[in-house]
């Protein structure tokens, strides 16, 4: 077993032959951050006293949810057979919403640790990332984690991994991030198995951006992997997608605290600081070169982030609108995938239509806005972007049901996804039933092992953005996992269902649904609202309509009595306090025509039962 390296290789002067760049592919909860923590400790880059759980996950939300949203890169020294090596661990996000970020992180590595929980086996998202890694020709080191757990089944899952990547079960490493067992052997294995980076040190500099983070004190910190040439301090750099140039104020490596260096050479991983204040000026996937000796060809693979899911975000208290606007602006500095524009709703007031990569991105963004900016928000039911062709051939893109044109529609196209679901085989029937009810088309089915099956479906994105994952989880008793990627679009028979309160349309509740599901949506929403909206002094009809046609109807009877019979023995204080409370409650009401609708009714109506029950899913 190797001790920690006595002398660490110096950045900018490191021979590529002793560099190993790797990432860890793992599902949430499979122990990636714990393993990374253990590596930092074993290699001595983080002193015992500085150690805190999930050292690399810097955002509170990351620590709490046990997930990594933004990736990080750490330079670790490790000695094998008397040679000091330089290991760069590039942490990757694990969620399907961030597939593009994952692909860029993978492109920065020569190898990947495939980390799987020995008690749970591989999950769909991990499988998806594994495919990406294999596509990038990465060398895979299969590892089973948590072998200390009593419920671990290392033999079963080692066979599963070997089957997947084409090796022998005996080659699968067994570790416990918790106890540290097997971690040193894993570090040795990384040095021995992963190829060193290859690049031309004399060519014009080309470095790929795999992450870009906004820091209040330092501005945007850009994480790069140098492919060719080298970057040095005080050099002018250029972004190849935009040709924008920036002064290089600082260059260095994370070990794991940022440490300035004399530069970065071929195969090295580090950070750049240019004084830029917006991550959009330093985009993930872009190629960095030098201004004075620019490369002619970028590294390729760059894409603009494309939002897939849209939702209206509104402050509960209308007075918080400016706070929300500033908060979104700030968040945008650190999230190149976030897009938003102001919108207003008759029911909810002023807010923003925000585009997200997926549902988790939505949830995390909303949670960060609420937590970091002390906001109470209502988010409308998420929807996708529809392409509507009118009879006059005009094409409009609809991201908000209230913008859906009425009449004169020639064709509507909706985005599709190809979804992969992994689950124990006993749930196949339930999963197929669910996908079928969501207009899915079965693409195929494979057994990963005797009792684990991979099912592939092509589904409308709209059918999976709301509550699909929650239902999948409950139908598979928590064992089912889902991965999806965009897969073109299709023509669909869609209609807009409006909800009317006392004849007044409530835009927040409008939904675009398949014609066959419009009735069910109408019945569900009118029924929900009937129970959520308190009785008024007059009868309130609640209707669901497609255009002028009413498809469902409920009604709230008029309240007949709203008076306290007596004041007990002169306890006026009690009556007054009750009244003050009611008055306060009235302030939190939104008026829809003459109908007072409590904020809670909006929130409850826009929330699925499952997601309100279990906020910490996924």
């Amino acid at each position, binding site marked *: 077993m190797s001790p920690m390296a006595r002398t660490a290789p110096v950045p900018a002067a490191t021979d590529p032959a002793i560099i190993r760049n790797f990432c860890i592919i793992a599902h949430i909860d499979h122990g990636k951050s714990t393993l990374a923590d253990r590596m930092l400790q074993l290699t001595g880059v983080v002193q015992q006293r500085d150690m805190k759980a999930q050292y690399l996950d810097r955002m509170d939300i990351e620590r709490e949810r046990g997930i990594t949203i933004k990736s990080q890169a750490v330079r670790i020294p490790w000695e094998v057979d008397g040679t000091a090596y330089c290991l760069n661990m590039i942490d990757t996000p694990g969620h399907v919403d961030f597939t593009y970020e994952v692909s860029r992180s993978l492109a920065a590595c020569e190898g990947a640790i495939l980390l799987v929980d020995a008690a749970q086996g591989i999950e769909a998202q991990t499988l998806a990332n594994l495919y990406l890694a294999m596509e990038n020709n990465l060398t895979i080191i299969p590892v089973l984690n948590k072998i200390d757990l009593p419920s671990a089944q290392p033999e079963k899952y080692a066979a599963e991994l070997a089957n997947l990547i084409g090796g022998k079960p005996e080659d699968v490493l067994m570790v416990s991030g918790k106890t540290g067992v097997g971690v040193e052997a894993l570090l040795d294995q990384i040095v021995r198995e992963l190829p060193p980076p290859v690049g031309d040190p004399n060519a014009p500099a080309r470095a790929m951006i795999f992450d870009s983070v906004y820091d209040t004190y330092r501005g945007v910190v850009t994480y790069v992997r140098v492919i060719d040439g080298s970057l040095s301090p005080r050099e002018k750099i250029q972004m190849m997608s935009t040709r924008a140039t920036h002064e290089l104020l600082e260059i260095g490596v994370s070990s794991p605290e940022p440490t300035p260096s004399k530069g970065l050479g071929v195969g090295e991983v580090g950070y750049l600081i240019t004084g830029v204040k917006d991550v959009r000026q330093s985009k993930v996937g872009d190629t960095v070169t030098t201004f004075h000796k620019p490369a002619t060809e970028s590294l390729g693979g760059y894409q603009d982030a494309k939002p897939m899911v849209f939702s209206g975000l509104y402050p509960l208290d209308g007075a918080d609108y400016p706070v929300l606007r500033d908060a979104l602006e700030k968040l945008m500095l650190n999230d190149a995938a976030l897009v938003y524009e102001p919108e207003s709703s008759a029911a909810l007031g002023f807010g923003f239509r925000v585009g997200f990569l997926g549902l988790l991105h939505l949830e995390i963004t909303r949670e960060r806005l609420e937590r970091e900016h002390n906001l109470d928000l209502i988010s409308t039911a998420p929807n996708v972007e529809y392409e509507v062709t009118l009879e006059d051939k005009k094409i409009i893109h609809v991201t908000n049901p209230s913008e859906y044109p009425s009449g004169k529609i020639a064709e509507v196209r909706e985005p599709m996804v190809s979804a992969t679901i992994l689950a124990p085989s006993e749930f196949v029937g339930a999963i197929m039933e669910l996908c079928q009810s969501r207009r899915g088309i079965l693409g195929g089915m494979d057994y990963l092992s005797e009792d684990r099956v991979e099912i592939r479906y092509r589904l409308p994105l709209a059918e999976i953005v709301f509550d699909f994952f929650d239902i999948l989880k409950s139908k598979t008793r928590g064992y089912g996992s889902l991965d999806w990627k965009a897969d073109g679009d299709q023509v669909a028979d869609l209609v807009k269902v409006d909800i009317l309160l006392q004849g007044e349309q409530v835009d927040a509740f409008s939904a675009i649904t398949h014609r066959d599901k419009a009735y069910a949506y109408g019945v569900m929403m009118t029924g929900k609202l009937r129970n959520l909206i308190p009785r008024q002094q007059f009868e309130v009809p609640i209707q669901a309509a497609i255009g002028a046609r009413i498809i469902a109807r409920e009604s709230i009877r008029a309240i007949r009595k*709203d008076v306290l019979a007596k*004041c007990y023995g002169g306890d006026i204080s009690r009556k007054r306090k009750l009244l003050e409370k009611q008055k306060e409650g009235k302030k939190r009401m939104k008026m829809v025509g003459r109908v007072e609708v409590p904020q809670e009714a909006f929130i409850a109506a826009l929330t699925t039962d499952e997601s309100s029950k279990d906020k910490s899913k996924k």
Partner: protein
Amino acid sequence: MTPSVLPLGDPAPADGILPAQAAVGAASRKFSLYAHIPFCAVRCGYCDFNTYTATELGGGASQDAYASTAVREVEFAARAMTASGLPQRKLSTVFFGGGTPTLLPAGDLTRILGAAVEQWGIEEGAEVTTEANPDSVTLESLQELHDGGFTRVSFGMQSAVSHVLKVLDRTHKPERVPQAVAWAREVGLNVSVDLIYGTPGESLADWETSVRTALSYEPDHISAYSLIVEEGTKLAAQIRRGQVPNIDDDDHAVKYELADALFQAGGLSWYEVSNWSRTPADACQHNLAYWHGDDWWGIGPGAHSHMGGVRWWNVKHPTAYANRLDKGESPAAGRETLDADTRELERIMLVSRLSEGLSIDTLGPAGRHAVAGLIAEGLIEPLKAFAGTLVLTLKGRLLGDAVTRALLP
């Protein structure tokens, strides 16, 4: 009557001295006395008032010693009011509530009343009421109350229907009520009866029977309260367990409308949301003092008091109450001093419940702005509003709290 849960407020000093605000303008306000008698033969299932059965208490808080303890608070009150700079005022009204005041010997009640009259004096023809359970009075005890200064008795009839009384845990026999009413008349007391509607299991016909029966006794005054299920009562637990059906506001509304129609036909007019009287003079003056925001001192455990925008309330438990007074300390548990806005809110909340109405001129811009809408919704009398007074319609009485909310800024 005092509720079981006390409000949260500021601490009250042991010497009972009131904030300066209490004395401002006091000379022009009436002064009343409320005396709480915290005893009942049995606790009713719906009741969350501060009351105890005979077996629950002993020592200085016992039924036997209670009159002496209450008299001690009367004396304490007189000293504290003088020390707080309040002018000497005669009693305008006195009301004994409970619990069941008539569980105490009539002599105890008249002794407490006598002590109060000795301290403050009493206005000529002042109303002095006691609540009474129909089966805890006799001709003799009523005579003694009358001779001791009482002018009015309010019987807790609640219902004329046995199965309803049973749900309410009322022990009296319905046929006992006309007897008690007749005795009260005989000795010269003004008579009121209390009814409760909306008890679980009470049909509309049951309620009609109760209303007609009450009217047949030709009382001078009727109070009709909808049943309120209070947290922590036996009835609340029974409803939670599904042993009795829950109460229903719509049922209450129908019964209120029926009662109002029958009372009117029987010659009684409403003067407050839950109170009807044969003539304006028969309206309960003590009750009106509450709605008018007059001053009153409430003696007894858990009793509430009010002086010029200062509200306070006594400790709840009779033993703690007696101990405080034994030490010469104020029995107040807490108090609040209302600012001008809160007093105005209370004024709107209280006066709007009365048939005499609320002067629209006294309302702020928000309140005046709401008037037209209230007329449109049929909640206030249009003609009265044109003449400058806000008076609730029948529909408005049922939605009184909504009207108040509409009038608040």
